[in-house]
């Protein structure tokens, strides 16, 4: 299939005809999305404050536990994030085919590439209108894969490796993830990578929120309400 034929088949998909509504995101996917969003907020703020702590508190050490609470928030949110990610992987198997989209990139599909180029041109104001998609559009799909799936795996691996340092040699965190630290060149380097990962995700969140709002207004399909109700409605 060449690019033009792929484009034609995308434009004339009966499933995305104007006025049609499709159930895309099932309950567990939506719940995971919002829990994940909350986790990322807590993790980014508490993580930043672990790297650059707040101004010193006064009084006796035993009367304060500020850094302890910040670290607790980070670790608790990290566990929720990690468990949520595992449940999400399970749902990729158990749920509908849209639930699987996050975990694989269809790089051999010409239709996907045609859509990616179209979507890029749409963002460069070179197209009058974008294609319609039941799931993620190819550009969004690419970003989700890199900054949600891949980034989550990297953050979970480096995060639990660092957590394992405190839990000690022989803890399950150390046994499962401890190999990461020498691989990245030591504890300090692992901290740096984990920190960069945070900024990568923060940058993604900015783009993600903007794209969701913009496409809700400008594209030919619903976006924000779809992640609340699960239903996607198409427009002309």
């Amino acid at each position: 299939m060449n690019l033009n034929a792929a484009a034609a088949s995308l434009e004339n998909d009966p499933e995305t005809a104007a006025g049609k509504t499709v159930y895309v995101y099932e309950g567990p996917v939506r719940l995971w999305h919002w829990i994940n969003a909350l986790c990322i907020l807590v993790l980014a703020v508490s993580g930043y404050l672990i790297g650059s702590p707040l101004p010193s508190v006064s009084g006796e050490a035993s009367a304060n536990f500020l850094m302890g609470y910040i670290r607790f928030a980070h670790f608790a949110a990290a566990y929720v994030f990690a468990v949520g990610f595992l449940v999400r992987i399970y749902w990729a198997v158990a749920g509908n085919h849209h639930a699987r989209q996050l975990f694989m990139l269809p790089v051999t599909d010409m239709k996907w590439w045609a859509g990616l180029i179209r979507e890029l041109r749409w963002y460069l104001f070179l197209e009058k209108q974008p294609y319609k998609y039941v799931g993620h559009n190819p550009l969004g799909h690419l970003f989700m894969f890199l900054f949600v799936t891949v980034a989550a795996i990297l953050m979970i691996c480096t995060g639990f490796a660092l957590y394992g340092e405190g839990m000690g040699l022989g803890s399950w965190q150390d046994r499962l993830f401890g190999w990461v630290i020498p691989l990245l060149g030591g504890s300090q380097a692992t901290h740096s990578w984990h920190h960069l990962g945070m900024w990568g995700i923060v940058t993604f969140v900015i783009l993600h929120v903007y794209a969701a709002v913009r496409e809700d207004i400008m594209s030919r399909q619903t976006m924000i309400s779809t992640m609340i109700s699960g239903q996607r409605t198409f427009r002309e």
Partner: protein
Amino acid sequence: MTETFYDVLRRQGISRRSFLKFCSLTATSLGLGSAYAPKIAHAMETKPRTPVIWLEGLECTCCSESFIRSAHPLTKDVILSMLSLDYHVTLMAAAGHQAEKQLEEIKKKYKGNYILAVEGNPPLNEDGMFCIEGGRPFVEILKETAADAKAVIAWGACASYGCVQAAKPNPTRATPIDKVISGKPIVKVPGCPPIAEVMTGVVTYMLTFDRIPELDRQGRPKMFYGQRIHDKCYRRPHFDAGQFVEQWDDDNARKGYCLYKMGCKGPTTYNACSTVRWNDGVSFPIQSGHGCIGCSEEGFWDKGSFYDRVTDIKQFGIEANADKVGGTAAAAAGAAVAVHAAASALKKAKKSETVTGEN
């Protein structure tokens, strides 16, 4: 009859009482408990003495300096009695051809049965000519001596990881010994220098139990490198409380608050400084008011400033750390979003104008 450690010690004038005290002390310092003291004593009384050959490559001799200052004078005497009889460039009485002959003799006599302790590392550039000993490149001597050794100890950051001579750009290509020696068990005892008691502890363990101590993933003895400085730091309560030294001369520094914000590498450094301490247990860097510089971590010279917590990442240019790189990316994304949103709004407005116009 073959000489045992005990025979050697007695010949050196060490009393039975002192010997037993040494055994208890060693058992404790190795974390083995008092029940092991008689076992150590028995091993030293019955086992034939294992000679130790101590080679020095590209290094500063700080490991040897640390070693001979082992806290307990007794420990020092005992260990030195074991070592000085054999080969140690700085400490042995022999010199020149006599010394080299002695090395050859030990290698022949105790083939496959001696411990090789290496201080420093071999530089590999220019066929190893940056470190010549007795007219030959050190790397050759190291390989030869290691070939017939039972086990190898890598003293300090130099032998373990390369240390300052291997810091970028590493002009002599100074190389950690585990990259040169193969097929021998290697115990890494990093630090610049390692703590004296850690060094004597490792040697004693290997000599008395005739095996290498349990090692972690990076080849370091778990008993001394199993935890971070931070995990056992006496200033840890101030860290958890959120009480930090903000400037070197502030009130918090005088109160002995946590040095985390001053770039202390305690949270990323595996060593026994906060438990064993230095100079007869007198102090250690954090106790004297300066953060840990992470000298027992791999490549610590190339890991950014000693005084930053979020250290610079050299790949991103001079003086850029994760916050600067990431913050710039996030700000750029935010700015791009703002511009794009404005352009999108314009487009949308134009479109609705057209639509209204058409109506």
